[in-house]
């Protein structure tokens, strides 16, 4: 046995010695040619680059362009569209599009392609939300008329995520792997789940990308550090646990995500509904919710649970267009929080560190999704942090399917990460309690908030939508700012290892789970 061990050790040592002489030739070669190699998660190389089947909804779409787009501040702006006229009842959209736009194959993009794209997406009955689109027709070569069967302002959002596909080159079975779009990039080689090679689309009408070639890989968690160390990858999506690894020539770059962690605090007392327990006797007390909201120290929770990769928040991500900043306050106001609790009758009379009111102890359970360590850790750190307020929280790891099912009774740690304010309707409107298992888990029921939400959903123009959704969060009188249906903790930051010499410019903001979020601004990347 010893001999064998010695032999193996020698082998490993030899191997290490031999490896000392490696160089970074490959990366300087790429720098010279304006090429980069990136590994940014599975989604970008799994194929199916077909917008009519939902490509572009879960991440940026470098290959197509749509009628609208989100700019770098996450605000909607016109892209292919030059003029948008909405009828007074919100049922008709007449959109004029740019002339002289060409697909990457050189053929012109006209209103026919737009009609074809929307019709195909609707017929596909897939992810693209066109449930309310009645019909779409071309008025002339550069004007399209959309008719809805219900006023539905979020329709504009769909026009921002749905890239236009060419009618002349679209075949349902093959298009997904050979996209031909009007976006800044085009695919020149693609191997499913292996690598995607893309180059700038010389026919793109906007500002052209600075890089000459981007190779996208998906190297798994196990091999990614090795790949980065060997100098073969310039931008790598890494686990937060590995993110502090020191790699020569690479630096840690952090992207803000819109994913916000929040605990739902059921607002009604525990009772049975159709044989299921709902409500929570502790969180239904307003004093408990308010005390937690201002009393906990979010910075400390982030440090303990997420290695510091988070940003404190008291509402949806501040990077979203429709988030009301008025909800942001200073936290860690322990004295004030204790005052609120004591005024409401929560006093620790038996000296065990936990407050009681009418013989009930201020203790409740929060579940953390078992296959999302970040969320569970946040629940644990929150529990620890609430101790100083005399509130005992028990953090419990639980399978998500179970945790969300009982969430109206036992709160859980959510990750809210939607660009669309439609999410607000699902989480805050009273009609949504119990819908789709997960909707409105706080059982929030505020008629005035409901009114604002409905005003937003039935609005005919986007500015009203945004304004009403902001009022629904706080209109100066009432709203979640004072009701605290959710205890917001933080938005999550996503770590990447990036080559020192690569300048990524101002990063966009994206979702946590999809490593490809960082490519949102890939057009502006450049070698220093």
């Amino acid at each position: 046995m010893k001999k064998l061990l010695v032999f193996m050790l020698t082998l490993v040592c030899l191997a290490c010695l031999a490896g000392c002489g490696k160089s970074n030739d490959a990366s300087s070669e790429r720098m010279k040619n304006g090429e980069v190699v990136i590994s940014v998660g599975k989604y970008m190389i799994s194929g199916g680059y077909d917008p009519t089947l939902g490509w572009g909804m879960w991440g940026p779409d470098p290959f197509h362009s749509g009628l609208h787009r989100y700019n770098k501040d996450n605000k909607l702006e016109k892209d292919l569209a030059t003029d948008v006229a909405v009828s007074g009842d919100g049922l008709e959209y007449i959109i004029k599009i740019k002339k002289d736009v060409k697909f990457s194959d050189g053929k012109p993009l006209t209103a026919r392609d737009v009609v074809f794209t929307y019709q195909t997406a609707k017929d596909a009955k897939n992810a693209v939300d066109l449930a309310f689109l009645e019909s779409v027709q071309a008025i002339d070569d550069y004007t399209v008329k959309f008719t809805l069967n219900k006023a539905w302002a979020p329709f504009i959002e769909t026009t921002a995520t749905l890239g236009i596909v060419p009618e002349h080159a679209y075949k349902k079975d093959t298009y997904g792997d050979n996209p031909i779009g009007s976006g800044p990039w085009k695919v020149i080689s693609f191997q499913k789940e292996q690598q995607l090679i893309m180059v700038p689309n010389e026919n793109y009408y906007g500002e052209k990308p600075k890089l000459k070639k981007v190779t996208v890989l998906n190297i798994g968690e196990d091999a990614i550090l090795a790949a980065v160390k060997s100098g073969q990858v310039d931008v790598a999506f890494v686990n937060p646990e590995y993110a502090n690894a020191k790699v020569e020539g690479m630096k840690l770059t952090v992207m803000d995500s819109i994913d916000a962690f929040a605990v739902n605090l059921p607002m009604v007392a525990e009772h049975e509904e159709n044989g299921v327990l709902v409500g929570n006797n502790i969180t239904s007390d307003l004093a408990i919710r308010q005390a937690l909201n201002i009393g906990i120290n979010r910075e400390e929770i982030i440090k303990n649970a997420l290695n510091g990769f988070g940003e404190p928040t008291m509402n949806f991500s501040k990077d979203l267009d429709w988030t009301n900043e008025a909800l942001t306050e200073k936290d860690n106001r322990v004295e004030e929080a204790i005052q609120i609790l004591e005024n409401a009758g929560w006093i620790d009379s038996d000296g065990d560190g936990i407050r009681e009111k009418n013989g009930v102890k201020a203790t409740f359970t929060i579940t953390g999704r078992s296959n999302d360590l970040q969320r569970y850790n946040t629940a644990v750190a929150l529990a620890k942090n609430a101790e100083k307020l005399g509130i005992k929280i028990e953090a419990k790891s639980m399978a998500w399917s179970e945790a969300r099912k009982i969430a109206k009774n036992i709160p859980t740690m959510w990750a809210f990460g939607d660009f669309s304010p439609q999410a607000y309707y699902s989480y805050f409107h009273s009609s949504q309690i119990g819908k789709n298992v997960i909707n409105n888990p706080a059982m929030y029921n505020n008629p005035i908030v409901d009114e604002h939400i409905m005003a937003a959903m039935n609005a005919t123009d986007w500015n009203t939508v945004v304004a009403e959704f902001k009022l629904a969060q706080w209109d100066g009188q009432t709203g979640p700012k004072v009701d605290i249906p959710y205890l917001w903790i933080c938005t999550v930051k996503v770590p990447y290892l990036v080559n020192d010499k690569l300048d990524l410019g101002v990063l966009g903001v994206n979702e946590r789970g999809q490593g490809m979020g960082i490519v949102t601004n890939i057009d502006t990347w450049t070698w220093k």
Partner: protein
Amino acid sequence: MKNQLITFISKQCIRLVLLLIAISMISFALLVMSPIDPIDAYFTGVAVSDEQKAIVSAYWQFDRPPVERYWHWATNMLSGNWGDSFVYKAPVLQVISDKFTSTLLLMLVSWSLSGVVGFSLGVISGIYQGKTLDRCINYFALVSVSTPVFWLGILLVMVFAVELQWFPIALSTPIGKSVEDVTWLERLHHLALPAITLSITGVSAIVLHTREKMIDCMNSNYMLFAKARGESLWVRVKRHGLRNVAIPAVTLHFASFAELFGGAVLAESVFSYPGLGSAITLAGLRGDVALLLGAAILSAIFVFLGNLIANILYIIINPEVQGGR
């Protein structure tokens, strides 16, 4: 002997059909009973109106009763239609064949490698029982059987890919090269590390079983007789040893198809090698019935074939079995 073989095979085929029916039913039942809501899993992270969700659900028949869905799938299957994958939005057969070719290549190479190496090591180890060489081989087998595939994979990557740079770190083709320009040599180069990883862990069982059998064989009277007749060691082993020893090795090796499947999935994840593994995981997590059932059926056929071949070879190699039937 021919008739015997034919009845044997046809009996096995009937068993296969029953097996497939059972497997598809059980997999389907498990998937339906699992708490995963495919629509919910699909729309994670995007806000979509309930109306659109209903449209998608109806299109993929998630709103139908399970029995009806199974029946629909089964009747389609009988007419050769494997259905469409909800996750990949492509025909199941196309998804599987895309991925299965890489997995199959990986499995075949590592399987042959571990068979040849394992058998040779086992024979040598048995011949030199108790000597240093035998002890080394024995230790190697014991260490490798207790090494998890993914750990071994990471170790090999660190040594041979990162430090020595003899082999590429991951993937099945060179970085930055178009598919058309990739040569077979490059493909094999990329296949080497995952295949070696997978075969090292597959070697041990064969080595240990073959060694045991070889020792029995070496201590037998007929070996003693052959030795007395003056046959040299290698002639003895060749004439009287190998055939006897081959039987357990062959059975074991063909029956190991099932483990090979599991190992390949792990190796694929370590080396970011494209294959069926990730597709099956995704199908399970997203409630993609057609793809999961397709993969289950295919792997069942594959494992079954392995066992069938083992059984047939058994009949051919071992005269005792022929007489007995």
